[in-house]
Each structure stands twice: as structure tokens, then as C-alpha cells.
């Protein structure tokens, strides 16, 4: 089949006409508006929203139904950009890579430019992604039939090889963090033996660590903690060069069109692989941009606009890719695609060869829906970026309690149980320690997402093919690429130190630094995990043991290097640290400590309140209390913000999403409280 097959063009054209029907467009735009709204809220991905709206689409014709659902799903990551750039707190698991450069830009007053560059990149990325999808439709089935477990394994390994790039000036630490992430991915019931690994006998960990609370803990909580220490608005100075910022952002995107093209195709390709979610796609695009763009290795992480453009383009193109396996094989490429699959059946569509022959027009209508949704979504945000950028000027005493409440509720979306909050808190501490002591966090997420896939496909491939799986041509190519991506930065790093000789020669008297703290913690935790491996079924021991020992060796090496290296040679010259760095505006140590302690107490108070009187009463009191006690905000404002945020959260999370809140103490002590039907009290 040829891409320029006339019948294909015909189908594509008539699908476009179908989608441009005004009534369908209205539904598409409604979906887009809802998607943007849920995208701004931390933790709430498109999945919950899509599930909610699904029943309403049963009465529509297929093209309208998919326009509506895809509109919602496609722009979710666009809404995410706002908190990522302005607060340095990405709403979901995606958008974390945008934070690195986007937030730096916002902090030096270029929030408007960062946002408009991000939206322009999203728009173009979404279009390029849809274009690739549209052109390659006839090739879907043959290509995907070829991609079996060995190829997926090689792809996952290629993904994990990105850690070397994403570790910046601290390759050993990055490697250790990635290994630790893989270990965390293996927590839970092992599919091939049924053994429970590191679950401590809890049902919660049986299904593994949920990604959302981990990501929110690692990235969002530390950011809020540091804001609580700085006690300023996020942006410095007044406002932004907004008008020119918007033009500049658009110009940035246009100038970097080729980068956007590459990243969006990368995003679309990765999106087509089930299991590789948006939480990894953004980092891989970021790593790709850093290794291919001129001078990027020195400027990424310091507010380089290309560091915003690359992940945004990739994440926006990903949905197009995720549609592919859903359409042609019925294997959902992402969790919201799983819900789309239900809509498929409801409209009498069966995924499979029919979708690219008899139902080709519907397939094309989906491609168009995605493209148009991106245009609308990014367009709306682009036009609003002047207003949105001002959000960064909101004082810390409003941002902290409101964001914290939303993050806690968002984390609760993970498995909807108390365990999510423990995970959030634990990874908040880990993330904060890592940020303080300059351990890169992105590799940990990469390991967590890909670790499970690697083990699963490794077992499938070896059970089915023995070792011959290594001989497939695509496998060889991918593994070679992985080796290059992994080794080149490491070798370059060593060379920049002046070779192994200098590295060893630089050793001096042992010195202990505060920054070794996290290494020691990691060593202890990993040591414990490795010591538990004996209790697993034999097959379930292999990967944890291998990865566990690697982590131990690497952490030990990293600690030794730090302890013995003379200060003069520490840090590679000109290579940036690939993560945010704690920045306390030169505050004195005791002040920082005091403020951190206060923040921690507030955090615990929120959890305690939630356990006692339920989430909404707590939220109201918490936001009000924080604003009054931390910054003496006027009562009128306190009431407005606290009430407004609480009512909003109540409407979205309780009325719309009906999240099952955990039981509260008050309801246990005074059973009458339960019959009051107060929101959040159970």
C-alpha cells in the first residue's frame, strides 16, 4: 500500500469534512476546555475525566464521540504546562522535564515567553504528530506485527540508557538513582511467580508503587518546601515583558521547528509503545535535545528555551502515537486509551484490520480530532499566556496551601487509599534530600517506569526465544544505539576530568560532606532490599539481585569519589547539573531550618486533619490558617481563597469524580457525624 493511495486521501478528506461540522467542533472544543481544566490540577490525568464522560458519548455518532473524548485527552498535557513553568510543580507525571528550564525562565521574569514557547511547541508538535500518524496509517499493522517482546525489551533498554544523558555532571549518582528506580518498579506481586516483593505484607504495595504520588512527592513537594523557605512569589521583580515575551516565545518555537519535528516524532513513536507513558517521553525528548542541539549541554537547566520546547512537543505528539496500537490491535497505548477502547466497542468498532480498511474514515476522523484539539488547546492557552503568566505573582501564602491541598488530593488518585499519602510523604522526603544534595531525580522516574517493563519483557523474551532474541536486526540496532547513548556521555565525562589517571590522582584525604547523606541513606535502603531478595521465589530473584548489587557498587564508588576527591576537581567543567538546585536566596542556616520545620508541621497537620475531620474541612481550615498565620493576609482574602478553593475541589473531586475518601476519626468516634453527609467525612 502506498501512502498516497487515492482512496486514502479520499478518506482523509471526507473525514476532515465530517470533523469540521459545526456541531462536532462544539463538542471537540468542550472536550478541549474540560481537558485543560483537569490538566491544571495536579495528579488528575485525562484518565479520570475520560472515564467520567464516557457514558455521555454513547448517544453520539462515532466521529463526534471520539472528537469529544480525544479533545479531552489530547490537551491534558497542555494544561499541565502552567503549574510546571510558573510554580516549578508539574501537575502530573508528565511535564516534569518542562520544569527544569521553564521554571528557571519564569523565575527570571520570562514566564510569558516560556509559556508561549511551550504552547507554540505543543501546537506544532501535536500537528507534526498527527501528520506522521496520518501518513503512516497503512504501515501500522505490518510494523507493529514485527514489534514483539524482544523489540520492546530492546526499546526499554534504549530508554533506560538515557539516564547517562539525564545525569549531567553526576553520572554515577544518576546511574544509582536509575537502578534504585528499577528496584522500586519491582515492588509488588511478581507476575511470573506470584511472589510478593518488598510489600511488607501490605495489600497496598501488592500492586506496586503508583506513579502519580511518587512523581508528585519527588518533584512537587520539594518545590513547595523551598518556596516556604524563600517566602516570596515565584517570579522575581514585577511582571514580565509580557507582550514581547509572547512574540519571543512564538519566535523561539518557529526558529526551532526542526527540533520540534524531531521531538514530536520521537514522542509519537514512543507513545505507540504501550507502557511507556508521558512521564518518560518528556525526559527522553529533553535528553535528545541536549545531546543534539548546539551548546545545549552547557545551557540546559539554566533557562534555555529549547529545554521547554523539546519535551512539550514530544508530550503533545504522544497521544497520536498511543492511538496506533489501540486502533489496530486493541492494545491500549495509555490508560486513557483503555477507556477509549470501551467507546470503540460501544460504537460497534472492533480494533483490527477493519480500522484501516472499512473504517478508515473513522480512523482519520480521530487523527483530525487530535490535530484540531491541539490547535484549539494550545491556541487558547497561547492567547491567554499574558494573563496566565501573572499567576506567578501570587504570594507564597496562597500558592503553598492551595497547591499542597491539591497535591495531596491528586496523590490520592494513585490507588485511592491512605497508602498514597504515605508514598507522597516518603518520596517528598527523598526528593527533597536529592534536590538538596544534588542527586538527579529524573533517572529515578525513568527507572521506575521502565524497570517493570524490562523485567517483564526479559522473561517473556528468554522463555520464548532463549538467547536467540538478541539476534533480531532491530534488536541489534537498538541495543547498539543504547550502548552509544549510555557510554558516550560517560566517556566524555571522564575525559573532561582529564582521564582516569587524573581522576585517580585527584584523590586526597577523605572528607565528609553533607551531600553524602543521601548516598548513605540509599546504600542502607538498597542494602536492606538486597538482603530480602533471598525470600523471593527463585525466578523473581534474578533482576532485583543484579540491579541491587549494581546500585550498591555504584553508590559506594560515588561516595568514595566524593569523600576522597580534592575540592578543586569536584564537578565536571562546564557540564550542568541535570536537575533543579536548591536556592534559598542566601538565607541563614537556622532560618532555613526553622522554616522547613514549620512547613513540615503544616504538612503533617494536613494529614492529621484529613484523618480526623475529612479532607474538605481540613482544606478550608488549612488554607485559611496558613494564610493568616504565615502571612497575616486580610480576612476577606483569606475567606475568599479558602472557600473558593475548597468549593472548587469539592465540586471536582467529590461531585464529579466521586473519590472514595478514607474513613475519618470523627465518624468513628461520633457516628452521628456520618449521617450528616458532610463532604469528605466518612
Amino acid at each position: 500500500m502506498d501512502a498516497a493511495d487515492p482512496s486514502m486521501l479520499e478518506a482523509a478528506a471526507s473525514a476532515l469534512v465530517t470533523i469540521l461540522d459545526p456541531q462536532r467542533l462544539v463538542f471537540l472544543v468542550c472536550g478541549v476546555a474540560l481537558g485543560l481544566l483537569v490538566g491544571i490540577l495536579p495528579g488528575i490525568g485525562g484518565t479520570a475525566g475520560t472515564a467520567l464522560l464516557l457514558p455521555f458519548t454513547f448517544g453520539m455518532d462515532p466521529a463526534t464521540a471520539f472528537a469529544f473524548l480525544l479533545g479531552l485527552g489530547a490537551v491534558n498535557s497542555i494544561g499541565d504546562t502552567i503549574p510546571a513553568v510558573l510554580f516549578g510543580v508539574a501537575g502530573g507525571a508528565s511535564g516534569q522535564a518542562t520544569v527544569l528550564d521553564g521554571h528557571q525562565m519564569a523565575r527570571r521574569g520570562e514566564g510569558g515567553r516560556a509559556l508561549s514557547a511551550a504552547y507554540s511547541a505543543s501546537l506544532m508538535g501535536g500537528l507534526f504528530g498527527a501528520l506522521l500518524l496520518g501518513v503512516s496509517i497503512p504501515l501500522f499493522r505490518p510494523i507493529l506485527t514485527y514489534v514483539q517482546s524482544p523489540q520492546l525489551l530492546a526499546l526499554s533498554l534504549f530508554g533506560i540508557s538515557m539516564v547517562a544523558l539525564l545525569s549531567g555532571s553526576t553520572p554515577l549518582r544518576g546511574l544509582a538513582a536509575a537502578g534504585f528506580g528499577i528496584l522500586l518498579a519491582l515492588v509488588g506481586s511478581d507476575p511470573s511467580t506470584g511472589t510478593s516483593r518488598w510489600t511488607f505484607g501490605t495489600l497496598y504495595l501488592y500492586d506496586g508503587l503508583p506513579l502519580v504520588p511518587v512523581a508528585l512527592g519527588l518533584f512537587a513537594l520539594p518545590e513547595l518546601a523551598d518556596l516556604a523557605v524563600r517566602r516570596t512569589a515565584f517570579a522575581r521583580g514585577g511582571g514580565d515583558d509580557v507582550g514581547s515575551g509572547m512574540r519571543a516565545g512564538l519566535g523561539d518555537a518557529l526558529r526551532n521547528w526542526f527540533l520540534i519535528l524531531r521531538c514530536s516524532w520521537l514522542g509519537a513513536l514512543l507513545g505507540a509503545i504501550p507502557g511507556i507513558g508521558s512521564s518518560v517521553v518528556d525526559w527522553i525528548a529533553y535528553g535528545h535535545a541536549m545531546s543534539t542541539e548546539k551548546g545545549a549541554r552547557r545551557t540546559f537547566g539554566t533557562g534555555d528555551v529549547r529545554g521547554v520546547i523539546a519535551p512539550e512537543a514530544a508530550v503533545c505528539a504522544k497521544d497520536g502515537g498511543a492511538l496506533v496500537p489501540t486502533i489496530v490491535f486493541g492494545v491500549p497505548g495509555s490508560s486513557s486509551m483503555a477507556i477509549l477502547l470501551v467507546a470503540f466497542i460501544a460504537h460497534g468498532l472492533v480494533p483490527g484490520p477493519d480500522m484501516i480498511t472499512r473504517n478508515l474514515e473513522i480512523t482519520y476522523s480521530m487523527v483530525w480530532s487530535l490535530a484540531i484539539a491541539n490547535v484549539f488547546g494550545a491556541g487558547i492557552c497561547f492567547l491567554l499566556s499574558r494573563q496566565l503568566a501573572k499567576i506567578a505573582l501570587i504570594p507564597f501564602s496562597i500558592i503553598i496551601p492551595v497547591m499542597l491541598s491539591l497535591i495531596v488530593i491528586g496523590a490520592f488518585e494513585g490507588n485511592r487509599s491512605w497508602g498514597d499519602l504515605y508514598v507522597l510523604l516518603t518520596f517528598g522526603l527523598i526528593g527533597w534530600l536529592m534536590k538538596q544534595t544534588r542527586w538527579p531525580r529524573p533517572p529515578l522516574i525513568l527507572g521506575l517506569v521502565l524497570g517493570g517493563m524490562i523485567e517483564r519483557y526479559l522473561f517473556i523474551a528468554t522463555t520464548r526465544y532463549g538467547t536467540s532474541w538478541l539476534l533480531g536486526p532491530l534488536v541489534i540496532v537498538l541495543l547498539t544505539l543504547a550502548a552509544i547513548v549510555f557510554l558516550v556521555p560517560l566517556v566524555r565525562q571522564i575525559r573532561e576530568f582529564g582521564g582516569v589517571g587524573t581522576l585517580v590522582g585527584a584523590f586526597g584525604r577523605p572528607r565528609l560532606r553533607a551531600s553524602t547523606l543521601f548516598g548513605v541513606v540509599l546504600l542502607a535502603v538498597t542494602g536492606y532490599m538486597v538482603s530480602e531478595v533471598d525470600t523471593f521465589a527463585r525466578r523473581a530473584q534474578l533482576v532485583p539481585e543484579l540491579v541491587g548489587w549494581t546500585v550498591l557498587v555504584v553508590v559506594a564508588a560515588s561516595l568514595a569519589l566524593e569523600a576522597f576527591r580534592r575540592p578543586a576537581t569536584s564537578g565536571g567543567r562546564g557540564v550542568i547539573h541535570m536537575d533543579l538546585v536548591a536556592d534559598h536566596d542566601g538565607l541563614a542556616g537556622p532560618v532555613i531550618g526553622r522554616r522547613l520545620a514549620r512547613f513540615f508541621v503544616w504538612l503533617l497537620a494536613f494529614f492529621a486533619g484529613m484523618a480526623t475531620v475529612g479532607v474538605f474541612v481540613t482544606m478550608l481550615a488549612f488554607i485559611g490558617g496558613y494564610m493568616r498565620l504565615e502571612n497575616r493576609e486580610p480576612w476577606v482574602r483569606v475567606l475568599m481563597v479558602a472557600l473558593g478553593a475548597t468549593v472548587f475541589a469539592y465540586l471536582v473531586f467529590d461531585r464529579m469524580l466521586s473519590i472514595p475518601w478514607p474513613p475519618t476519626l470523627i465518624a468513628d468516634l461520633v457516628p452521628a457525624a456520618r449521617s450528616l453527609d458532610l463532604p469528605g467525612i466518612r
Partner: protein
Amino acid sequence: MRLTLAGLLMSASLTLPAAAQTAEEFYCDVGEMRMVVSSSAGGGYDTFGRLVAQYMSRHLPCTPNFVIENMPGGGGVRAGNYMYDSAPRDGSTIAIIDRGIMTAPLLYGESTETTFNAREFNLLGSLVKEIGVGMVRSESAVQSIEDAKSTKAFFGASGVETDSAMYARLVNSLFDAQIETITGYAGQSEYYLAMEQGETDGLFMSGFSGPNRLQALQARERGEVKFFVQFAREPDAEIGADVPTIYELLENEEDGQIIDLLLSRLTLGRPFIAPPGVPADRLAMLRDAFAKTVSDPDLLAEAERLNFRISPVLGEEAQAQLAGVYETPAPILDRVRSIVAVPQQ
């Protein structure tokens, strides 16, 4: 603050249930009904749960609204424990729950995390009686159980504890077949794809109402897939009488009892339950409402459009079915346990 507390206590005393509230009054006052779903949004159980919630409301007094609460975890164990330990027992909360966990305490005993006595749950019924199907790719060397006795075949599954893997152990044990289960696929769609791709030879679908049913039926029409056994008492209309039932293939009488036990599990379908201890009049009302729901023409029309198979089991029948499973004679139970048990490796 004191004011609020006083108000709280006052209104609480007002809404305390009157002693002689009838079931009808209860459902008129309940405000909201809750439907707990033991999986996350989007799956088969979720879709069935939402479908019933949508239509059951009109068959209860004063048409109370249903709120769906997804409570995934441990393959349904978490929702089961919740329904037994903490859910209100006043008849305001019902659940659709993974059928496996209803018999998990019996078959897996100590090794499960379940805290409930499944027989104490009040079953409302199910929209479907499930059946199981074994299928292979037409190009595979193995086209029947007979073939699998002499030729090794790879079948896909997500985990060793799933029904798909368990059926393979069952067939191997009863017929001395050589099916090797490859576990680790993320879900049925993934190991179905693996069969299409030729990575595996086939698979066992437990519950032929899942999302891949239509795909499989169409693939069979195209001649790409062959169904070689059905786990059902009588041949299923959709699958056809030319596909042998497992009973027809059995080589000795006693094995039939093993299949009986496992099939009763399947017959529970996708069970809807109420917690133990729901007042008898309310339970009767719930069961009655469920019975009316499953024959509601609007629900049936919707189900047909969704391409769902509807073959309902009602509350009392399901309850008897479950009780029967728990009364299986010890020797049979031991054999079943040894088959379903996950081999230690």
C-alpha cells in the same frame, strides 16, 4: 466553632434513623447509593458497574442516584475486604467485585490477603454467566488438546495467579498436555496480540465477555484463529457446537467434578454483592431491583449496542451457587487446590 459543633450535633440527632423505618422509607431518605468497583475506571468490571448503576436507580424507591467508587487493589481483594470490614451495612452500598476473590479464601487459603468470609456476602447476581475459551493461531502447530499432548505450545497470560494461567495448568494436569504459559503480559489485549503476532501459539480467555471477544470472533471468521475448547456445560451459541466442551474431552468421570467446581466459579460471572448483615427487607428490595434492572429493556438495548452478552444470574441462585462451591468434598477440593496452586520455582 462551638456554634458549628452544636449545629452538627443537633442536625445529627434529627437525621438519626427512626426505629420503624421501612425499607421503602430508607431508600427514599438515603440520598445517594454507592457502587464500589473493584477495578480502576475503564475495565470490564467498571463498565458493567456503571451500566447497572445507571439503570438500577429507577427500580429502587424514590430513584436514588448512584455514585461510582473505583477501589482497585490486589485483584479485587481490597474492595472485598472493604465490603466486609468497613462498608456500611445499611443497604446503601453495593459492589461489583472480581469473581476470583469470592472463592480465593477457599482455593488459596492462607496465602491470600482476604479478611472476609465470602459466604456471608449477600449476592445480588450478575449480568452474565461467564464461560471460558481456549484458542490458537491457525498457523500454530498445535490445533487441539490432542496436539498439545505431543507438541509443546506457548500460551500467554499476565500473571501465574490469573485464570488464563490456571486453565493451562488444568489442561496439562488432566490431559498430560505440554502447554507452557508465558507470564508477564500487561493484560489480555497484550497476550492476545502476542498470539496474533506469532510470539505465542494461543491463550485461554477466562470470561468470554471481555474486550477481546469481538476481535477473536472476527479473527476466527477470517480464518486466523481457531477455538479448540470451551469451558462450559453446554456448547455456547456464539462459539458453536463444533468446538468441544471440556466435558466432552474428559477421559475419566471423576475429573468432571473438578470442572464443576471451576465452572461454578465462572457462573458467578461478574458478581454484584451487598455487605453481610444488610436488613432482610432492604436486601430483598435490592435483589428485586437488581432483577428488574437486568431485564430492563433500556439496559438490554444499551448492552446490545455495547455488544455485551447478557445472561443473568439472580441473587438467590448465585448465593446457592457460591454455597455449593464451598461445600465441595475435601478430596476434590484438594485436587483442585493442587491444580490451581502456583508452582514454586
